[in-house]
């Protein structure tokens, strides 16, 4: 079914319709922990996208060789390999970002977005579709956590990407760069995102299409979750 979809729709699927952060609510840990600044969100998103694309491609290529029973250890090994590459690259070329993101870079290994896409997409689809899916999901994740980071940084520190923007407008509310502010911004953005996309869906009238997309995603998604727990 997925093969019949155009490549473009696979690419855009991850950005709005199945946005990993706002729609699938995957990868909550980095979404909350590293988003005190927009720059961190961008860095984290880029690193996760790299791992996602790489692991999707490799898993898609080896999907017919790997026996079903050992697929989870194999996925984890592949993902861990790419995560190590990203970690070393960041440490070598962007040590500042690496320091900011700290433990969350190694933790990409257990990022559920990457694992979920491996389980519900890459192991069922060809390499090109999987790469596109990885790119789409990666962009969706990056946009989402950059947005969360932007809101928190502007409200909490008065800057955006490190540039002061609200110097004389208001005193920044420090709460927003603290953990409670992260949860609040996250919740409000998820609510707003779903409200807006729902309205759009009703307006365009292609409710059936969206429902099908979700129905296709959800079983695989829950399966991935169970796989993760096992």
């Amino acid at each position: 079914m997925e093969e019949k979809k155009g490549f473009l729709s696979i690419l855009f699927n991850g950005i709005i319709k199945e946005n990993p952060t706002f729609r699938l609510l995957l990868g909550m840990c980095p979404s909350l922990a590293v988003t005190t600044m927009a720059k961190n969100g961008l860095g984290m998103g880029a690193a996760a996208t790299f791992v996602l694309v790489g692991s999707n491609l490799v898993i898609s290529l080896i999907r017919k060789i790997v026996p079903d029973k050992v697929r989870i250890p194999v996925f984890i090994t592949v993902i861990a390999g790419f995560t190590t590459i990203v970690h070393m690259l960041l440490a070598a070329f962007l040590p500042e970002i690496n320091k900011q993101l700290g433990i969350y870079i190694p933790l990409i290994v257990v990022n559920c977005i990457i694992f979920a896409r491996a389980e519900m997409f890459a192991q069922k689809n060809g390499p090109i579709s999987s790469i596109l899916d990885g790119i789409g999901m990666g962009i969706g994740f990056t946009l989402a956590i950059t947005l969360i980071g932007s809101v928190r940084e502007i409200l909490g520190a008065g800057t955006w990407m490190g540039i002061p923007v609200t110097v004389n407008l208001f005193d920044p509310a420090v709460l927003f760069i603290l953990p409670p502010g992260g949860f609040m911004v996250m919740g409000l953005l998820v609510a707003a995102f779903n409200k807006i996309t729902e309205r759009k869906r009703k307006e365009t009238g292609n409710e059936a299409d969206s429902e099908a997309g979700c129905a296709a995603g959800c079983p695989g998604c829950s399966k991935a979750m169970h796989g993760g727990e096992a």
Partner: protein
Amino acid sequence: MDKKLLVSSSPHIRSEITTQKLMLDVIIALIPAAIGGIWFFGIRAAILIITSVVSCVLFEYLARKLMKRSSTISDLSAVVTGLLLAMNLPPTLPVWMAIVGSFFAIVIVKQLFGGLGHNFVNPALAARAMLLASYGSKMTSWIEPVNKIAVGVASSATPPADIDSYATPLAAIKGGGKLPELMDMFLGNIGGSLGETSAMLLIIGGIYLILRGVISWHIPVIYCGTVFVLTWVMGPEGLFTGNPVFHLLAGGLMLGAIYMATDYTTSPMTKKGMVIYAVGCGILTVLFRLYTNMPEGVSYAILLMNVAVPLIDRYSKPKRFGGGKNV
């Protein structure tokens, strides 16, 4: 309070009590302390009170409107929240911060969770905690010797105003400063949040609320009693050397115990639950005051116990008549 829980078979007595009437009683009870706050801290206190009440009502109206729900501003609960919020703020706070606090109290804590009766913590206290976390220096500017407060107090307070304590009593006891006279603390001739300084005016309002049956005496009395006993026992120089009267009158204890810990939505339903809740509030308050680096702990103590209320209610549920022991 617990009489409402005894639902028996008909006929029932119809009560004339409405949310609006209860809230009106709370507002009446808060008026002495509010006027006291304006008296002690001058016109800026009046501006803060009016701003926060008006913005709370406005946010309540707008939030309900946006969510396409019926307007609830006529039940006066937003007025109470606004009034309580203003009482919890330092008088020197910039006005726009009070508006931010009102937004947080009404929209985030109250309306997003479903409006009156569904808020999980007291909205005014949550807003205070949010402002304290966000604008720490502004929210505690009365601790530092800010001349503005002293001038405001000295110029508008009653004649025995030989006030040179710029810090709140609790900050003074932590920092080793000069402690105010207990009588001054009772009357309200001390630094502090807008409506928390005068124990006398708060108690007058509290007695009114108890006489009118709006609140029962359990939570305020047991809360204050716990604080009294614990601060007496856990004194600075060994057991039973504390200054319990000081701790009773200092900080936001009276305001918190009488007006905010007793919020219907966020306090237990049964007498037994209320006792557990009040003792918990008291213990936490004393722990915060004596053993942390914060001068005051009433608001955090009440917020924490607010969150524990569903659990307390669950364990203090009255036994169903004729039911087994596991009901």
